[in-house]
């Protein structure tokens, strides 16, 4: 098979026609979104150009420290994003749980994937490590974000139910079980749903990329199946670690609900 068709600068520029069309529509309809569209298009373009150059350098000079640096930056951005996206201000303890669950959940899955499932040598080969890390970290980030909001909503709306269970002698874990189950369910549902539509409703990004760059679709699906399972695993592990430690931050050492933090 041939590699991807190389685009000339003019060809890439011609794709900006779509932005012009969008700007025209927005202006005609008086939607007042021109500024956002221009900013986001510019950001996307500059960020991707920068990433392109950085990745070129990293792929040419494989080095375990650089690979680890990249994954650390990804984790930091993902964790910041989770904290920023939560509907309410998170307590210091809950933030610590977010950091712990993200790092443990994603790294465990990533290293299992790299070392056992696809068995890449050397393990830090950035051509594999970085894109896989991106997908695993990104999906765990979305999972924990959903889990956090469901957990906080659950505590806010059902504080009387939890308190009643405690009054009846329930452990905090038993008292929170319905909320934790619901949060876990909401967090993994998008991943499960996307698995159902995969290959029929849409072709996932990684697979599309591989096919465009000339890989056989059969190789592409092998990778896609494996990464989907890895993503599901990573989301499940990060979210369950987050929930199992996260609910505890809503109780004090006398197993009383910290109502003032809700």
């Amino acid at each position: 098979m041939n590699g991807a068709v190389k685009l000339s600068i003019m060809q890439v520029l011609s794709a900006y026609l779509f932005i012009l069309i969008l700007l025209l529509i927005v202006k005609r309809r008086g939607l007042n979104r021109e500024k956002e569209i221009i900013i986001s298009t510019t950001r996307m373009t500059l960020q991707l150009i920068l990433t392109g150059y950085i990745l070129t350098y990293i792929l040419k000079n494989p080095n375990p420290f650089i690979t680890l640096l990249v994954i650390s930056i990804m984790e930091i951005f993902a964790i910041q994003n989770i904290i920023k996206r939560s509907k309410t201000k998170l307590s210091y303890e809950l933030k610590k749980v977010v950091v712990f669950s993200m790092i443990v959940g994603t790294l465990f899955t990533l290293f299992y994937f790299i070392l056992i499932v696809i068995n890449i040598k050397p393990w830090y080969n950035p051509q594999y490590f970085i894109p896989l890390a991106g997908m695993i970290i990104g999906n765990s980030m979305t999972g924990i974000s959903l889990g956090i909001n469901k957990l906080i909503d659950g505590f806010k709306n059902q504080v009387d139910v939890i308190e009643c269970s405690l009054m009846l002698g329930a452990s905090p874990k038993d008292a929170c079980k319905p909320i934790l189950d619901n949060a876990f369910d909401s967090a993994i549902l998008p991943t499960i749903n996307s698995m159902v539509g995969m290959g029929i409703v849409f072709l996932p990004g990684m697979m599309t990329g591989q096919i465009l760059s000339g890989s056989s679709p059969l190789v592409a699906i092998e990778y896609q199946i494996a990464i989907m399972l890895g993503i599901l695993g990573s989301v499940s592990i990060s979210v369950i670690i987050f929930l199992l430690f996260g609910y505890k931050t809503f109780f004090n050492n006398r197993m009383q609900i910290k109502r003032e933090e809700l």
Partner: protein
Amino acid sequence: MFEVKNLKYKDILYIDHLNINKNSVTCIVGESGSGKTTLLKMLNNIISPDEGEIYFNRKEINQYNPIDLRRRVVMLPQTPIIYKGSILDNILIGKKFSKSEIYDIKEIENLLEKFNVNKNLNEPAENLSGGEKQRVCLIRVLIMNPEVILLDEPTSALDENTEDLVINYVVEYVKKNNKTLIMVTHSKEIAKKYSDHIIEITKRR
């Protein structure tokens, strides 16, 4: 059984000294906002005072494992809380929490009948009326067989006759089984009729 010393909680509750005897029926009365529920919650260790001590059987309440204490001193909140599931699931949930799943179905049916709840145990509990929910929650506490029963206005949704019937039964049960009952009530008549001791809490102005 309970001794409270120099207790202070926010701006709501100040108690210099209070004794509550074992095997007795004590009613707590007072206007709303005076801290009756707060006191009950403290005896159940659901909240802690800012200052002062609470002793249960001469031991500071914080020296007990909170879960063990709450299984011995069970509290029924004022708003009846209904869990997903049947009436039977709701009645058994307290026992489930304390991992003691042995129960006598006859006893439960008997209590439902005594409390005038004419429903099948397998019906979904959500369909019950407010008053029925309140009685189901009370049965939930009684079948846990705790040493101390803390009730927060357990009959607020009931008419006078049913209220009397229910309280009468609970008090009889407490006396017969050597339990201790501490009950918040809005009704001074109920307090006078059934309690051995009355604690009146006044609101600070």
